[in-house]
């Protein structure tokens, strides 16, 4: 997100305290994609683009549940030709794709999927405050 002027819309969902946050986060994102015309998708490529976004949301929010004392907030940001997902959590540590990735064994697939599907991803911290924001950006369908 180089230019703030790229941002067309920001949608924010508070997640702290609610139960069932992972499907909630997907539903919220699906609604955004529907209102932005990504869904319903005409054609398999466009559908896959939307499904990838929902999958990445699911991975990031799950990681906040498992490894970071729970998610606090999801932001779905519409940019000119990408969508940016931001999941803010309350925990220390940071996502670290496990290497080697072992296809046949449980564990270590979440960030592998995020890496595979996203143009870029990273971590933002506000100095002095706990927690962090993990963000990931995916291409919009052509």
């Amino acid at each position, binding site marked *: 997100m180089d230019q703030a002027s790229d941002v*067309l819309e920001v949608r924010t969902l508070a997640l702290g305290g609610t139960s069932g946050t992972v499907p909630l986060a997907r539903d919220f994102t699906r609604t955004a994609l*529907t209102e932005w015309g990504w869904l*319903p998708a005409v054609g398999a490529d466009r559908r896959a683009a939307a499904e990838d976004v929902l999958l990445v949301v699911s991975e990031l929010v799950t990681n906040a549940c498992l490894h970071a004392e729970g998610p606090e907030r999801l932001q779905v940001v519409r940019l000119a030709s990408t969508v940016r997902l931001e999941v803010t959590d309350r925990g220390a540590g940071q996502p670290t794709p496990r290497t080697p990735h072992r296809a046949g064994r449980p564990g270590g697939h979440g960030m592998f999927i995020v890496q595979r599907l996203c143009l870029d991803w990273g971590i933002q911290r506000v100095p002095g405050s706990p927690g962090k924001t993990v963000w990931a950006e995916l291409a919009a369908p052509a």
Partner: protein
Amino acid sequence: MDRQHIGSVRPERLRVEARTVGDDAELVVPVGELDHHTAELLRAPLDAALDAGRVRLVVDCAGLGFCDSTGLNVLLGARLRAEAAGGAVHLVAMRPAVARVFRITGAEAVFTLHETLATALPDSG
């Protein structure tokens, strides 16, 4: 930043997405279970499309796991409006349990059925 949206969501037994395709077609995709409690979620986008003059209603049923007579009534109502305006309701990729409701009631005869979206959407798609 153009718009800011602070939101919430409520999980539903049915989700419905809709989009316009070409000039006069609306693609509507219900996912989940269609019954007394969810029928309005499908009726609203069908009526909105008809109100806007889109009379080719393409309903992708691939994700529809259940439909009873209440769901059937929604589609039959849309079909009456669509046909009165020179259009039609196209039902795509119905699963066996849903297809059965249309078959035993005889309603399948009044819809255009398709196996895949490709034949149901207008050519411009």
